[in-house]
């Protein structure tokens, strides 16, 4: 902590009108801001996070992520967690360079809580998504060196009067572009396969449990065709991280619930490896 000679807190602490923690950090300790680092030439090998999926349902939104981080052809970690609580009503999942992404999520979490404490009000869901998009934009120089971070943001929008439509999903590109997605979305290396599966599974009247099942099935499909996405690891009991945001707030699906669900999914795939059949008519 740097202070001036008198021992009192530096001016940045007393600056008025700043409700953002990232802006405060930029004034007081710019070296701690992600994306403000000077980069050397060349590239580095760093663990990459893979597939994240999100599905809306009647009453909120479910997000899930597989547990694998890869570094080239190596599995860097088999039980990494890539889906996080952002605040009381939203969650964020990350794909891309794991180290930078986790730092970004930590900053984003502090940012939301900081704003809430300073201003005495929570940001709107769009406000949160815009804030995240600005942070990703700050990471652009890193992304150009191959260290991209691509998050998926979802939450329960308390300003939407109909709870059936209050679950919302936002995706981002490396330049900070923010796009609202409808019904479902996936990011990361296995996202093509997960999105294809979700396209067939998704229904407008999903319940919470059906949305959770759709997420787990689509991650299975992603792992089936993408070597960087980890499938459910039954021998080590490592299952996807599944969270939901509803009118009651954020919650994480318990491991024993997932244990039973994954067992059912894997059992069904024994009979039909491609997963549930979509009716053609």
């Amino acid at each position, binding site marked *: *902590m740097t202070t001036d000679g*008198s021992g009192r807190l530096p001016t940045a602490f007393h600056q008025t009108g700043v409700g953002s923690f990232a802006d405060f*950090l930029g004034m007081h300790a710019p070296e701690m801001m992600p994306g403000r680092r000077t980069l050397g030439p060349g590239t580095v090998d760093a663990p990459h996070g893979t597939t994240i999926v999100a599905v809306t349902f009647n009453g909120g939104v479910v997000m899930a992520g597989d547990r694998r981080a890869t570094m080239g052809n190596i599995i860097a970690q088999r039980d990494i967690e890539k889906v996080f609580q952002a605040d*009381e009503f939203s969650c964020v999942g990350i794909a891309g360079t794991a180290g930078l992404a986790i730092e970004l999520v930590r900053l984003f979490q502090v940012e939301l809580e900081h704003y809430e*404490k300073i201003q005495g009000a929570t940001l709107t869901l769009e406000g949160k998504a815009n804030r995240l998009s600005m942070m990703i934009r700050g990471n652009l120089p890193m992304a150009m060196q191959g260290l991209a971070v691509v998050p998926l943001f979802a939450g329960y929008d308390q300003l939407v009067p109909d709870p059936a439509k209050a679950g919302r999903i936002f995706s981002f590109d490396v330049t900070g572009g923010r796009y609202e997605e409808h019904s479902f979305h996936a990011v990361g290396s296995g996202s093509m396969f997960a999105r294809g599966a979700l396209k067939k599974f998704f229904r407008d009247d999903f319940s919470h449990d059906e949305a959770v099942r759709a997420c787990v099935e689509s991650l299975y499909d992603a792992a089936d065709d993408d070597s960087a996405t980890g499938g459910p690891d039954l021998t080590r009991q490592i299952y996807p991280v599944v969270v939901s945001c509803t009118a009651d707030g954020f919650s994480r699906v318990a491991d024993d619930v997932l244990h039973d669900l994954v067992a059912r999914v894997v059992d069904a795939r024994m009979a039909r490896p491609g997963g549930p059949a979509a009716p053609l008519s």
Partner: protein
Amino acid sequence: MSAPFYVSPEQLMKDRADYARKGIARGRSNVVLQYADGILFVAENASKALHKISEVYDRIAFAAVGRYNEFENLRVAGVRLADLTGYTYDRRDVTGRTIANAYAQTLGAIFSGAGEKPYEVEIVVAEVGDEVDGDTMYRLTYDGSVADEHGFVAMGGQAEHITGLLKERYVPGSSLAAALRLAVDVLTQAPDGEMRTLTAAQLEVAALVRSRARRAFRRYVGPELEALLAASVAHQAEPHATPPASDPDPDVEAEPS
């Protein structure tokens, strides 16, 4: 050109202290007290938007009396310091002592610095522990002095009078309703013995609730505060020395404050 008058350092400091004390004495009072399940904050405050009690971090809260712009400035600085410390290290590394020390240094520097007027504020920084023994309350005054308080703290215009009443009537380990009753009683009793009445709309009530998972701070507003006040009136008839067995504490639902 005439030479400036000589003012002794003692006189200078005394004048500044008198100035700050007078400013604080004009304001309404604020009571902070420990109860069985946490730390309760009760302020007389008719405004719903301009708070005298606020969350600083997971287990830490802030209460103040005096000039709004000055204590608001300190509150924001405290939140920034707490969030910065938590972001740099870990959430558990943020302690009430860190915040209280920074406030003490800042208030002390402002008080003795010649260029500024002293802040007319008094602050309590409280941190709820895992157990009652782990609770801490720091009281900071306009000149930067810090006191480590136990049980209860009163600040504001009637601080001395209220502290006297609390000394007689405070019971450790009481329920939320009993603690709220006591706080409202001492805030409404004028030094001449006359009782005023304070409604829910004139009170700002919040608590650091030990059992809450991460962010312990919680405000009591609207119908919930009215219900809590009504429940606390029921305790008034009972003798103060026997805390009731049942606690109508509605803290079980994890609603964000």
